[in-house]
């Protein structure tokens, strides 16, 4: 959800309960095409579905959208890593939700919970089927996050 400045006090009041950071990262090809929009929309839908179900414990970070070029791994991973590191004291559980296999694998090795999104559905982003699939995808992620808490 989109927090508003006036929600600040509510957010601070929830602090002791919100211990999980969810960081959505969408990586798209360098050449712009409509798939960019679909990829980003897919990530947003899935991550907001997850957040809405677990909002008392999960903080949804601003989604990051990256255009992929040959420097992608050298620049993006350190950037995300420093963001996650900066928040590691605040959030004992840190999860990344991404469509990039390389990112998911790299962060998994670093102890971050990494969810690799299923490919963006072929259906139109406004179609009911697309939205249904985003719910199904979120329902794949949610039990895994809950499982992490119970460990």
């Amino acid at each position, binding site marked *: 959800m989109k927090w508003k400045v006036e929600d600040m006090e509510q957010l601070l009041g*929830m602090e002791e309960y919100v211990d999980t950071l969810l960081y959505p990262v969408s990586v798209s090809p360098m050449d712009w095409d409509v798939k960019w929009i679909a990829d980003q929309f897919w990530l*947003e839908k899935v991550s907001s579905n997850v957040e809405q179900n677990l909002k008392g414990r999960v*903080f949804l970070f601003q989604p990051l959208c990256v255009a992929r070029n040959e420097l992608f791994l050298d620049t993006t991973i350190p950037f995300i890593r420093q963001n996650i590191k900066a928040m590691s*004291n605040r959030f004992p559980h840190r999860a990344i939700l991404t469509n990039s296999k390389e990112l998911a694998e790299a962060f998994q090795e670093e102890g971050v919970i990494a969810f690799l999104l299923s490919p963006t559905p072929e259906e139109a982003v406004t179609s009911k089927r697309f939205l249904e699939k985003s719910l199904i995808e979120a329902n794949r992620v949610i039990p895994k996050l809950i499982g992490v808490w119970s460990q």
Partner: protein
Amino acid sequence: MSKDQGVSRRQFLNYCLTGVGGFLAAGMLAPMIKFAVDPALKKGKAGGNMVPVVDEAVLTGEPSNHGFKYKITDAWLGEQETELTAWIYKEGGQVIALSPICKHLGCTVGWKNDPQKQNRFFCPCHNGLYEKNGKNVPGTPPMNPLDTYQVEVKNGKVYLGLVEPNKIVGGA
């Protein structure tokens, strides 16, 4: 929590709320829209603000989850349709529709989804529990019962309206 490293909570929240930092340099930020989608989404309006959600005939004494769309006014986006869900069941000829939003901090509760599979609603975020009628179980984090939806049954169809404080829980 140590504040020596990383960021303080206020720094962190300012960071998130204002969207500053290296994010803009690294890519473009996309706004998040709060909503959930359910495969059983149904669209359509009845008289007033009541929305048709499910046929009464399919309801039993066991709560089942149903999705529907409802028009709300949002400070960011103006009037928009939002997707909601309800736990609905029948008891003594009465249809009861509970909001799935936990009264502790707003996670989504499920029916019989706790590790013991009890006849209760369970919130996985901080182990909140509610009885079938929405009454919060003492000793778990929620301090209030689950809200209920306004319910109307017309021509065999269950219509839901606004969420209101739970009136079926005695003394809550």
